[in-house]
């Protein structure tokens, strides 16, 4: 997984469009960076990036953290995702994302994630999510749950 880290977001069209990439992977833990872009602003007066970018970024990293926690490759699907926005992201600055899969059952993975500029002491947003771990089955039915 670590060797293919830079390819992971390249294979996901929406991630490629937003321009975020994975920068570091450890067991159950994934980090990434989302560059600032005017194309994804949410407030025309301030140029602040839209929350949807952070939703996409943290959802994606959280799913990857599940992958990094599992012993063998299994597809995961987001069940639900909650985001709390603490403060707006600064215009023109990259956003760092960090996701941790803190608990696994046979069927569900639980995650926490953070978006910030410098450190987790001053977060832009936090996320918590649950993912369904899909059973290994024929490719034709993969992804349904």
């Amino acid at each position, binding site marked *: 997984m670590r060797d293919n880290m830079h390819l992971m977001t390249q*294979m*996901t069209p*929406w991630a490629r469009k937003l321009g975020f990439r994975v920068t570091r992977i450890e067991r159950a833990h994934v980090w990434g960076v989302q560059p600032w872009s005017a194309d994804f602003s949410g*407030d025309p007066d301030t140029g602040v990036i839209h*929350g949807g970018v952070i*939703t996409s970024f943290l959802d994606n990293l959280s799913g990857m953290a599940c992958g990094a926690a599992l012993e063998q490759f299994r597809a995961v699907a987001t*069940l639900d995702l909650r985001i709390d926005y603490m403060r707006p992201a600064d215009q023109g600055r990259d956003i760092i994302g960090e996701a941790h899969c803190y608990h696994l059952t046979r069927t569900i993975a639980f995650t926490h994630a953070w978006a910030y500029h410098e450190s987790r002491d001053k977060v832009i947003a936090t996320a918590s999510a649950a993912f369904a771990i899909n059973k290994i089955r024929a*490719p034709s039915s*993969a992804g349904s749950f």
Partner: protein
Amino acid sequence: MDRNADLAARLNRMGMVKSLGMRVEQDHAGLIAHLPFQDDLIGNFTIQALHGGAIGAFLELTAMAEVILKTEGGIQPKTINLTIDYLRQGRARDLHARARITKLGRRIASVRAEAWQENESEPVAALTAHFLIGTEEAADSTRTADP
């Protein structure tokens, strides 16, 4: 009609609305948002599923549009928090959504929204969100100070 044109203009000033390619219109039941399918919205190439983040962004913007429509002259609504339930796989086709304001306070709006593809009664995802609304002054007084 002017109000709809004004809403569309306000939405289109947001880069994210244009990047997603979404648009809104009024029908018999109120505001409806459309997200025409494009390859960029795919999250899983193998199974051709829409990205959960794209669905989430679309739902958040649909909810925001409903708030803008119902709070004429107010500030740009600011998202406080949101929860998205992913109910069905989003397939490689158009997505539609409607939002409903469950509580419109002076400073905070509570909103629900649902997105579907073929059938409105079979939602792909559902959102619950809170937005900070009101006048510029009210918004400033509710913003928490940085430590």
